[in-house]
């Protein structure tokens, strides 16, 4: 290494010198590598082995109170468990808690825990861990991203080691279903001693998998928790996972992920290139899985702080101008996505295609032109707008079709595509400005409960967009109504309001992180409701 010699002489202890030394060390092959042996086909599924799951991105954190990205909570879901669970139909069933009780006035919820549950570090899991989790999630000193979802908690009381009681300032209807979501993952109180390392290098839970290591941006290594007991999760295996190890790798490029699956280097990928789905269907070694009932919803929302979209007619014109079914046919293969008519998507409590259908905007270009003419637009004066969308799968193709449909009624939409983080910031920015070219955007959100509508639209709103006192009152009712039938009515009222006022124009579902492909040797892989990949039943053939 001639360079190194030079450097030693000239700039000892320079960064490059250090780096080159490290380079030599790493080149000497102290690299760890997980190898998987793929058994010959035709053998029966066996226990043990490693499954490598490749995704395009990485988790932000393994601390369930620090992030809400899908890439993160799909990992929480492996390491931690929840008090309650969703079964295959999306109904709520007992899990870590063997029973729960809601007081008549809806301000108290009590859980009785199963006995004998242990954390990954061997400490028992009891009511103290539940209290620790909840207190940490709502602690204003610990800026938790899910604080609002826990509701107006007044106190969390440990009644006895197996019983914990949540007391609310006012009835909170969305709480019980939240207890079944990975965002309400139960973390063990031994994590307190880890300080800043919690969720970064270590994470103690009671879930199917325990954290071995996390190389940020590269891979998360999980080993099976031998003590795992299945209570309410919708899987057949009642005990520990069959696999020994689950490795979650990040491969950003979709074509590379698919190549890795084809060579057998990885056994499961998410988001294969959508243009290559036929190649996957036609390959006997590969299998395609399309998740349903993911809770995802793609929709239009408008910047109402300035003309023209502060006028309902402009919003309705856009809604009548587009033909969603035609756009879906152009942008997506058959059977990948569905038209969604409700502001909350299929599989979520309160979703009712028929009810929402009454208030949907059908494709009606003439009506769109008429509305525009009423506002003074016409052939000589087209409406100039910006349509913003995030990058990902075939979203851009979708908005290009919308663009041409809008042009036919005299709306010139300029498309701006950006990453989802930028889009979120930009939409908020636009809503806070009273001047400038008018904008609207195609946004997507996923949630397991109609409470998403509260989070999106109750003032000040997720994006400071459309707000009104009537809408706020309707949304508050969806939160405080505990009775299921009455709550369904409250949700209907909100949906009707959002559709009638053309505030939230539903387009399609799922459309994000929902297409998976496996090697056929992977048996028992399942995507649970709300896009939760589960590996408890997985065996490798």
């Amino acid at each position, binding site marked *: 290494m001639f*360079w190194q010699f*030079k450097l030693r002489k*000239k*700039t000892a202890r*320079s*960064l*490059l010198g*250090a*780096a*080159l030394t*490290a*380079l030599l060390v*790493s*080149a000497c*092959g102290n*690299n760890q*590598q997980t190898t998987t042996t793929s058994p010959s086909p035709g053998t029966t599924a066996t226990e043990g082995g490693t499954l490598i799951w490749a995704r395009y*991105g990485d988790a*932000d*954190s393994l601390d369930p109170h*620090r*992030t*809400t990205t899908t890439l993160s909570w799909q990992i929480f879901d492996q390491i931690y468990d929840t008090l309650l669970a969703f079964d295959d139909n999306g109904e709520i069933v007992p899990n870590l808690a063997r029973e729960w009780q809601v007081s008549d006035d809806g301000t108290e919820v009590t859980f009785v825990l199963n006995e004998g549950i242990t954390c990954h570090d061997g400490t028992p899991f009891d009511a103290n861990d539940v209290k620790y989790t909840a207190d940490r999630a709502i602690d*204003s000193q610990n*800026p*938790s*991203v899910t*604080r*609002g*979802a826990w509701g107006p908690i007044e106190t969390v009381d440990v009644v006895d080691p197996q019983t914990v009681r949540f007391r609310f300032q006012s009835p909170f209807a969305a709480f019980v279903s939240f207890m079944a979501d990975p965002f309400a993952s139960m973390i063990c109180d031994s994590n307190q001693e880890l300080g*800043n390392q919690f*969720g*970064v290098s270590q994470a103690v839970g009671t879930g199917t998998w325990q954290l071995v290591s996390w190389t*940020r*941006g*590269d891979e998360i290594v999980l080993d099976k928790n031998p003590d795992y007991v299945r209570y309410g999760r919708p899987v057949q295996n009642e005990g520990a996972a069959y696999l020994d190890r689950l490795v979650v*790798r990040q*491969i*950003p*490029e979709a074509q*590379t992920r698919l*190549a*890795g699956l*084809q*060579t057998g*280097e990885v056994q499961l990928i998410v988001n294969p290139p959508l243009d290559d789905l036929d190649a996957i269907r036609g390959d006997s070694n590969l299998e395609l899985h399309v998740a349903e009932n993911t809770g995802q919803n793609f929709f239009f929302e408008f910047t109402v702080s300035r003309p023209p979209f502060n006028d309902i007619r402009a919003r309705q014109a856009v809604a009548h101008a587009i033909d969603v079914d035609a756009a879906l046919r152009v942008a997506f293969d058959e059977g990948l996505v569905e038209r969604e008519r409700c502001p909350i998507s299929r599989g979520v409590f309160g979703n009712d295609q028929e009810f929402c259908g009454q208030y949907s905007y059908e494709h009606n270009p003439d009506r769109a032109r008429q509305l525009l003419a009423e506002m003074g637009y016409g052939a000589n004066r087209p409406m100039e707008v910006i349509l913003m969308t995030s990058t990902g799968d075939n979203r851009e193709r979708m908005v290009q079709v919308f663009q041409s449909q809008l042009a036919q009624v005299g709306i010139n939409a300029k498309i701006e595509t950006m990453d*989802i*983080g*930028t889009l*979120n*910031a*930009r939409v*908020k920015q636009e809503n806070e400005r009273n001047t400038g070219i008018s904008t609207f955007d195609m946004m997507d*959100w996923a949630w397991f409960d109609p409470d998403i509508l*509260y*989070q*999106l639209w*109750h003032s*000040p709103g*997720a994006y400071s967009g459309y707000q009104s006192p009537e809408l706020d009152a309707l949304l508050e009712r969806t939160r405080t109504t505990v009775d299921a039938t009455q709550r369904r009515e409250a949700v209907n009222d909100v949906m009707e309001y959002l559709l009638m006022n053309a505030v939230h124009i539903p387009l399609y579902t799922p459309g994000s992180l929902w297409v998976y492909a496996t090697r056929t040797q992977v048996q028992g892989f399942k995507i649970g409701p709300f896009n939760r990949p589960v590996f408890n039943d997985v065996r490798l053939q």
Partner: protein
Amino acid sequence: MTRYFIKRLLGGLFTIWITTIAVTLLIHLVPGDPVQIMYAQSQSTTPEQIEQIRRNLGLDRPIYEQYIMYMGRVLQGDLGTTIRGNQPVLDLLLVRLPNTLLLAVTSLIITMVVGVTAGFFAAYKRGTWIDSTLMTGAILGISVPNFWLGLMLISIFSVRLGWFPVSGTNLNNLVLPALTLGLANAASVSRLTRSSMLDVLSQDYMRTARAKGLAETLVLSRHAFRNGMINVVNMLGLQFTYMMGGAIVVENVFAWNGIGRLAIQSIFQRDYPTIQGFILIFATVVVIVSIVLDLLYAWIDPRITYH
């Protein structure tokens, strides 16, 4: 020589300093700060809380103040922690830097070997089919985007032939990314070598050497090649910079765990400390390497004197 070296060193430090200012300005121009992006799809946080988090991170201060605070810490060797995971930025980068350097240096070797050989033959066989074939290949190589070449190599050597793994960060996996990066840049090196060799081959001393009755191989190696190499070595520093830049794209294609990939993720998350740390390390490496290569150049070519 020493004076020249000190001058270059100061110039390099100035470059790094300007780079840090530029990147600070640029990342603040992009809409959305790290806190906004982190909490964008969480309605749980009130605007007051968001402001509080911003204050804790010092994001509420004017950009120049943030910059001065940052540089003050950097001069003490503290590059801060990532916004999302609270991990020390310097550690994250230093763990990955060897991977990026390994990729860049290997690619550079491939670039030089392939580029110089092709350029040399093209010049020597000037006007023949060999020349035109090599130069057509070079034009192709220059026009093909890195990521496409990478995907092609994966499809041929991994999926069809099964010779190399598709992705990952270890020596088995070095071949394809290094080839991708190396071949892409070999094209321009071959063109430079060719023109520089043509220049040398037409010089009077070549005729003299041949007239003296020296064997052709000796004429080529001792006279033509050595003189022709001067321009090529001069290009090494620039080539290395290209390698480091190209590594960012190639690391992404091959899921190679280097600093470039970390940088891309950090940009999406607006993780300011990580982006700034990346640029600082990147610029430092590039500056050091180009100074070293310039000194090397001076050592090869005795005609060069520095003032």
